[in-house]
């Protein structure tokens, strides 16, 4: 079903005056008019037929409405007009509804035909209500048709102007940080107490020269030294001992793992 009715309809626009639609434009005695362009589907046609009964939609005779619809469809078929499927579906449904309504009450199927009829009636009422509402809406004093805004407004323009904010502290801090960021970087290593390998070597070899017995490596360390210097001296002296042993000037002994390291000079 397309928007504009059954047969390719030219009636895309309509004026508020013709609100009642094409079918309604037909006069009373033209009972057999067959104007198919005007409707937007079977519900629309039904509503138009219902309005012809000239009673409140709440008191509409559904049976009569069904008859009118079926007659209408039959005539269209007799004239070999091509009907869209949904008109035929509605016709079949209404025929069923009619037969169900005519059955004795106790033989009526479920859901009851009264309920189906009521549902149809409610739908017609709602469509009719919206159609009337639309007509009333369109009939209002509309801007640009009945009432007008100013034809040539000057227009309002707002130019934004920035009011910049910055304070003294932010300024000075920014400069400080630029300076800090761009000052050439100088790495300074802190002066630490160390015994170099050279001084350890001369110290150990000198002490080995005057002693002939085995001596613990720790005895070579300077007494009363700062603990940090002691660690450095121990490491240097150990390396010095290894170096002297390699040169054949000293021998090293250790009785067990992690035991005291003993050192003795070799007379050349």
């Amino acid at each position, binding site marked *: 079903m397309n928007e504009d009715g059954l047969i390719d309809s030219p009636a895309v626009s309509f004026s508020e005056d013709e609100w009642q639609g094409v079918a309604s434009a037909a006069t009373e005695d033209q009972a057999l008019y067959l104007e198919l362009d005007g409707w937007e589907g079977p519900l629309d046609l039904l509503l138009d037929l219902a309005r012809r009964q000239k009673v409140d939609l709440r008191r509409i005779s559904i049976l009569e409405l069904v008859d009118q619809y079926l007659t209408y469809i039959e005539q269209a078929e007799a004239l070999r007009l091509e009907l869209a499927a949904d008109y035929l579906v509605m016709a079949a449904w209404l025929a069923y509804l009619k037969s169900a309504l005519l059955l004795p009450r106790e033989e009526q199927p479920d859901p009851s035909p009264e309920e189906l009829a009521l549902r149809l009636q409610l739908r017609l009422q709602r469509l009719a209500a919206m159609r009337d509402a639309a007509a009333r809406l369109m009939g209002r004093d509309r801007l640009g048709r009945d009432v007008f805004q100013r034809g040539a407004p*000057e227009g309002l323009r707002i130019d934004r102007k920035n009011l910049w904010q910055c304070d003294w502290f932010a300024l000075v801090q920014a400069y400080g940080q630029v300076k800090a960021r761009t000052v050439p970087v100088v790495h300074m290593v802190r002066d630490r107490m160390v015994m170099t390998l050279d001084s350890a070597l001369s110290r150990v070899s000198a002490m080995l020269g005057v002693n002939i017995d085995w001596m613990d490596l720790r005895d070579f360390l300077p007494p009363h030294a700062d603990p940090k210097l002691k660690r450095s001296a121990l490491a240097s002296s150990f390396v010095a001992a290894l170096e002297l042993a390699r040169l054949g000037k000293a021998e090293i002994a250790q009785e067990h793992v992690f035991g005291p390291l003993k050192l003795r000079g070799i007379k050349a």
Partner: protein
Amino acid sequence: MTRPDDLVRAVEATLFAAEEPMSAEAISTHLGGANVKDALAELAEQYRTRGVQLVERGKRWHFQTAPDLAHLLRREREETRRLSRAATEVLAIVAYHEPVSRAEIEAIRGVQTAKGTLDVLMEAGWVRIVGRREVPGRPVIYATTPDFLSHFGLESRKDLPGIDELRAAGLLDPVEDALAAAMDVPDVGETEPAEQESTD
């Protein structure tokens, strides 16, 4: 005509010059934060009987010509774009039922609504998408815009012609609800109509 006070004159000039309707807030902002409520009311009163009037539409204010002079002005303008019958119906359904999905519009009209129909209404600036309904399929839902209210001369949706009567008559309720009420079934969808024992 007495000289209006400065704030009234400023509001008057601002609204005259504005190309679009303005909210009280927008006017106030434009005038440096002044409270314009009273000035607007005074201005509306001063113009009430004139050939030009100050009106409020959807919380936005604008000047427009008096409706009773429409016959004088209409001829110089080409008529506003004519809406198709389908479009007017869809517009009414959106306005009276908003927010509403396309399926709900179609349920009332009994025909499918071409996509183009809603597009025409959105292009006119009268209808817009306001979100999605949180049901399966998450259908898009539509509602009217402030421009819709301005165009049809409505202060708010409460001014829609006949909306109170339609609501009171239940004609804005879905068919299912009305059916339930009419059949006196307390809750549709759960309660099946009580089965009658057939008397064979």
